[in-house]
Structure formats: structure tokens, C-alpha cells
């Protein structure tokens, strides 16, 4: 009798736990997008080729020879930003709970409205636009090319690391 009651209780508890578990499987980050990662890799190659070709610095009188490359690279980057932002970002109770927990621990909540890869790609696009505009106006010194490149490498590492990590 006791054994039967215990078994029944265990079954009910298991069923209750099952209902809880059914509601628990969760998604906290966007889906992995292989096409986006492939786009990042090929755009990164284009960027590094361009920096290699301008590493000695540029003068504004030869800008016309680089204009098409700037347009190509900036266009690719902007397309990747759109592709990255086109994915739905999961929002749910768990995200809110994690944010509240971090707040309690004194960790400032960084706005989660955008994926870090989209922000990084946007910053790379801004960097290349600034380089282009400076190139038109006065040319770019070798030192400035190195600084533009350093900036792009840092943001690209952020974008590639995050997007690759989404493959889970």
C-alpha cells in the first residue's frame, strides 16, 4: 500500500517536473548564420589586402585608383550589418533574470538591443568611410593607415568571435 502510494507520488512529481522542464528549454542568443560568417571571412580578406596595398600611405591625387575598392568594401560591410540585424534576437524571462542578477551584483547592464557583431561591423564601416574621406581630402599617412588597420582588426575580431560562437 505504502509502496503503491509512493510510486503514485513519484509519478505525479515527475509529471509536474516534466511540465516545468517543457517550459525551460531556452534560447538566449541569435541563430548561427553560416552565410554571415563566410561573408565576414571574405570581407576580412578584402580589408587586409587593401591595408597591405596602402601601408606606405596615400596621396589624394591618386584617390581615383582606390575609389572603387573603398566602395566595394564599405558596401560589403553595410550589407553584412543588415544581414546581422535581420535575425530575430530572442527576448525572454531568462534574459531579464540574468540582467537583474547582474544588476544586483553591481554589474552595469549594457543595452542588449543589438548584437555586438552588428555594432562591430558598423564601426568597421565607419572606419573605412573615415579613411576614404581623409584620403580624398589630404591623403593618409602610413601611421594613419596602421591606426585604421589596428581599429578594423579589433572590431573584426569581436564580430568573428561572436558569430562563430553562435554555432552551438
Amino acid at each position, binding site marked *: 500500500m505504502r509502496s503503491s502510494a509512493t510510486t503514485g507520488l513519484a509519478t505525479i512529481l515527475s509529471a509536474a517536473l516534466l511540465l516545468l522542464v517543457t517550459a*525551460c528549454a*531556452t534560447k*538566449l542568443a541569435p541563430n548561427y548564420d553560416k552565410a554571415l560568417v563566410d561573408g565576414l571571412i571574405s570581407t576580412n580578406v578584402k580589408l587586409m589586402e587593401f591595408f597591405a596595398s596602402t601601408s606606405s600611405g596615400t596621396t589624394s591625387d591618386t584617390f581615383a585608383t582606390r575609389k572603387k575598392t573603398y566602395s566595394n568594401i564599405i558596401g560589403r560591410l553595410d550589407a553584412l550589418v543588415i544581414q546581422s540585424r535581420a535575425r530575430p534576437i530572442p527576448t525572454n524571462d531568462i534574459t531579464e533574470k540574468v540582467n537583474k542578477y547582474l544588476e544586483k551584483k553591481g554589474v552595469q547592464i549594457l543595452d542588449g538591443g543589438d548584437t555586438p557583431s552588428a555594432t562591430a561591423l558598423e564601426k568597421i564601416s565607419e572606419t573605412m568611410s573615415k579613411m576614404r574621406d581623409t584620403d580624398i581630402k589630404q591623403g593618409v*599617412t602610413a601611421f594613419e593607415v596602421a591606426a585604421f588597420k*589596428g*581599429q578594423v582588426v579589433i572590431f573584426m575580431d*569581436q564580430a568573428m568571435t561572436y558569430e562563430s560562437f553562435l554555432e*552551438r
Partner: protein
Amino acid sequence: MARQIDISKLVDEMKAAASEVLNKDVTTFRGFSERQVKAIAQQTKLVAMGIANGQITEETREFFLDSLEDMALNFAKTLRGLLMVTIEKVWNAVVGVIWKAIASATGIALPTPE
């Protein structure tokens, strides 16, 4: 017929599932953080030198200085993004273990949670 769930075994399995995810992901966090911190430090040095020797011109000076802040902020945001992925993986791995235990205890074949 329902079987009892062995609590200590279930706890061990949940710990193992969480540890497996964490051990793997911590390596990625560490590598990414080290690369970023070193690169941002080098970029800071480069910008400071360029401003001091005049190779970074008036035209780009403010842009590079503002960008240093943007890089550091998005580094933190990227780390947070990676952390969310890890929390998701740990959560789902633990749920998977619980799911399996319930399936075993109740004799009901349950699909793996996605």
C-alpha cells in the same frame, strides 16, 4: 512502472553537463579577452605616438580617440554576448539531463529539448 530518481546521481550528472560546457567555453573567453586587451593597448600606444609625432593629423585625431572608447565598450558587449550563449548552453545541457532522468523514471520516451 515508475522508478525513483537517484538525486545524488542526478546532481552529479547535472554538474558534469554544466562543467563540460563551461570548461570548453572558458578557453574561448580567455583567448578572446587576451587578444582584445593586448590589441586595444597596442592601438592606444599607436594613437598616442601618432598624435605626439604629428603622423596622426588633425583630421583623424578625434576619430581615433573616440574609437578607442567604442572598441572597449563593444569588447565588453561582445563578452556579455558570449556569456549569454554559454548560459544558454549550460541551461539546456542541465535541462537535457533532467529530461533524460524523467524519461527514465516514467518510462516515457521524450524528445530532446531544443
